[in-house]
């Protein structure tokens, strides 16, 4: 069933900043982010650990912790989730409009509950399906959609292999019939061998059910398979944005190049220096100059391409 894609946005973020409060001071994990994801589209948020990508993904999924500090605006499927420096709408979207596929499937499933029961719970609480017969039909559809056999339902999480538990979490995410799915590092806990399979599965299912997809990853190699658009994040800021194909073919920001080189295990190491203000990537950048001590402007190029780098400003 393919949804008629209207020009409404699934996700809209404007000057969004997300921080964590800790006894008085605030650590801003995400700073001044602008984002627009069209309905039915797919976006990859790429960055290493500490880039803020997980925080941003959690914000979209409505999963921010109570001690978070926010600024700016975040609208999910028309619902105002973050406004006026407060989180207001998270409860409305969490688990219903947006679901998340967690990073580590093994620890995300309750070890005391059979897989079947997990599905019953979701169907009952989110979709109000209480009749066992109808629920069972739904569950069968979901299980076969992710390519699992029905006997998985009678197992406990520890009896499943890595690939199987990841597919179970995908099926559970689909069970709520969400409009958006946030996949948090879907390949990080899997053997390299299964990466292609899981990533294609997520892609195909999103297309099939017309779900907007947000994929958080540190591995830029999967973006070509799974997403149309991409944002590259470093230390809380978006440093480049555009279509996946364009960025992979011709990356503009040096960090994007570093990520691409890392796929072939070729990037050499630079000694990390202290952040001294200005461009966030300055300390690691092989092309850094004195200019970079000032924060670079955001350059909007054609076709939705954006980059934050002094070298491009010239």
């Amino acid at each position, binding site marked *: 069933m393919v949804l008629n894609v209207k020009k409404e946005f699934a996700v809209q973020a404007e000057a969004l900043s997300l921080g964590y409060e800790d006894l008085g001071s605030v650590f801003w994990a995400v700073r001044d982010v602008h984002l627009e994801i069209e309905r039915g589209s797919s976006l990859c948020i790429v960055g*290493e*650990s*500490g880039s803020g990508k997980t925080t941003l993904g959690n914000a979209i999924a409505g999963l921010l912790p109570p001690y978070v500090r926010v600024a700016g605006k975040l609208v999910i499927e028309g619902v105002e989730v973050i406004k006026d420096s407060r989180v207001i709408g998270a409860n409305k979207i969490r688990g219903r409009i947006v679901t998340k596929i967690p990073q580590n499937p093994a620890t995300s499933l309750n070890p005391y509950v059979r897989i079947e029961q997990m599905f019953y719970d979701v169907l009952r609480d989110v979709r109000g399906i209480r009749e066992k017969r109808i629920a069972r039909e739904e569950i069968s559809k979901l299980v076969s959609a992710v390519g699992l056999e029905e006997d998985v339902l009678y197992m406990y999480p520890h009896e499943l*292999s*890595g*690939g*199987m538990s990841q597919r179970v979490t995908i099926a559970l995410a689909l069970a709520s019939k969400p409009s958006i799915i946030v996949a948090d590092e879907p390949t990080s806990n899997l*053997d*390299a*061998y*299964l*990466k*292609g*399979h899981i*990533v*294609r599965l997520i892609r195909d299912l999103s297309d099939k059910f017309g779900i907007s997809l947000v994929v958080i990853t*540190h*591995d*830029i*190699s*999967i973006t*070509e*398979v799974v997403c149309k658009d991409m944002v590259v994040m470093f230390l809380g800021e978006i440093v480049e944005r555009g279509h996946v194909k364009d960025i992979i073919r011709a990356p503009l920001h040096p960090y994007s190049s*570093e*990520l691409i*080189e*890392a*796929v*072939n*295990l*070729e*990037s*050499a*190491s630079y*000694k990390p220096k202290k952040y001294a203000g200005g461009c966030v990537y300055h300390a690691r950048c092989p092309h850094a100059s004195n200019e970079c001590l000032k924060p670079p402007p955001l350059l909007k190029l054609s076709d939705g391409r954006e980059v934050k780098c002094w070298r491009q400003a010239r």
Partner: protein
Amino acid sequence: MKPVLSVREVWVEFRLATGSPRVKKSVHALRGVNFDVFEREVYGIVGASGSGKSTLLKVIMGFIKPSMGTIEIDGINLLKVDRETRKSIIKKIGYVSQNPLTAVDPRFKVKDIIAEPLKAAGVPKSDIVKILPTLIEAVGLTPEVMELLPYELSLGMLQRVVIARAIAAKPRVLLLDEPTSALDSVTQSHITVLLRELRELFGYTSVLVSHDLRVVSRLADKLAIMLAGLILEEGLVADVLNRPLHPYTQALIDSLKLKEMKEVLVADPRVCPYYTNCTQRLEEKCRVLPPLVELSNTRKVRCWLYA
């Protein structure tokens, strides 16, 4: 030339916990593994989780006792000698594990973590103080980290510390168990480059185990493919990658391009482990486990297509 490390017919059995005490279910993590590692050689093993590759390293380190087989270092069988001799040999094995957080004592400063093997080797304190800065630099860190505690370092830096500790006492054999798997892509690249550099500089005899074919192909001289406790193919790295013989090897190489792959679920231990997924299987023949065939001095494969 005699090998530094020689592994012969190692079998490891794990008893599974079942409901009733009478029903004994066991699973073989390793089924008759054989290989040799020569001086200054890096022997790479690629396999999925559950293939037995980590178990193999743990057996060499002495963490797990095999039900059968021999592990020889410089001709001495670790499983047959007395405890004292075994301890003195295992002392000379460097070990890098997957998760840097559990590999170090969270209450030890970096300098004490790296100094431990030197202490164990009886190196006097005055010498240790001189050796430490060299080691720190060799793994790409700055001397300030010596006074820090593990929680103050990033995962990448911590893994460097673990590597420094492994090479501190000039080990006879270096074992690396998935050294990059817990790190993000950029850090994986950095650590791989570091291991390359160390290999050029020191040339330790090593066994490198990973589920990631890219890492092993960058660092190893020889490559072995493991599945379900068995070696399915072995050869020089370039050889295996350019001319893969076993269908599973071909599948692993294809998976690098993120092609659609079916998960390998191994069922019956009497059958070839790749039976369910193999596109080239010979129906009747492949129901029997093929033997490991030596096609040449440096090429082995376990497949009926070549037997």
